[in-house]
């Protein structure tokens, strides 16, 4: 069964306290090469087909429920 991936990320201009917390922990663990971390969400949607109508529906789901367009951007891609 095909799978569609929706990635949701905080918009670049929106503060990401979780990413900051992760980034802040890295030096304590001995990792010094990473200059920034931003944390988002990944959704895996199982679908019957990946035709145009289905992908349009997934985009609608991503826009109305999976992300909040005020603070987040999303991308949709078919896996495989």
């Amino acid at each position, binding site marked *: 069964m095909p799978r569609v991936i929706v990635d949701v990320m905080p918009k670049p201009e*929106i503060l990401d306290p979780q990413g900051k917390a992760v980034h802040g922990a890295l030096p304590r663990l001995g990792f010094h090469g990473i200059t920034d971390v931003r944390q988002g969400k990944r959704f895996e949607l199982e679908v019957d087909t990946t035709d145009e109508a289905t992908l349009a529906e997934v985009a609608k789901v991503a826009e109305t429920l999976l992300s909040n367009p*005020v*603070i987040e951007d999303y991308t949709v891609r078919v896996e495989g």
Partner: protein
Amino acid sequence: MAPKVGVVTFPGSLDDVDARRAVRIAGAEPVALWHGDHDLQGVDAIVLPGGFSYGDYLRCGAIARFAPIMTEVVAAANAGVPVLGICNGFQILCESHLLPGALIRNDHRTFVCRDQQLVIENASTAWTSDYTAGQTVTVPLKNGEGGFVADAATLDALEGEGRVVARYVGGNPNGSLRDIAGITNERGNVVGLMPHPEHAVEELTGPGTEGLGFFTSALTALVAR
């Protein structure tokens, strides 16, 4: 007959009982509303209380927005019925697009729980008419995701149109842009507020009674109608 103010209980709501109590102390009749119903039971105003509706899964308020009763709440709000969202209720109003902007995790990443001073900037909404503009009040504040954000144009519009209802005084507790604690819609009937006026309605159980004005304001607005 006293106006009826409905308080919606979602799975995970915490402050619904306190909100009903505040409504009663203000002199209105509290009505418990259930998220799963399509029935506002003829109430004259609506409070969306604080808490963690649907476990705050996905985003705070994101799933509550699609609760059955929200169809009726959104329609009522658009028809001019006074609606107050407190804390999680504010998040639900933003997710429902009844108010602009969004609430994100506190900038300092810790939950904040303290008595918070606010300045009431707009005393002409359905929920603030018993205050005077410029008045400061102290009510409890308790949130993990209370940082109000919106783009600069939206913030400018909110300020330009007098739609900032309350601002934090004495230190910004959560990173809210421009110290915004509460906003209203263009019509002034929908108000979202991150602090908790329902916890400041009796001397015994709060920092004072300065939160009561939000609830008596709605009563005043309803009686005058």
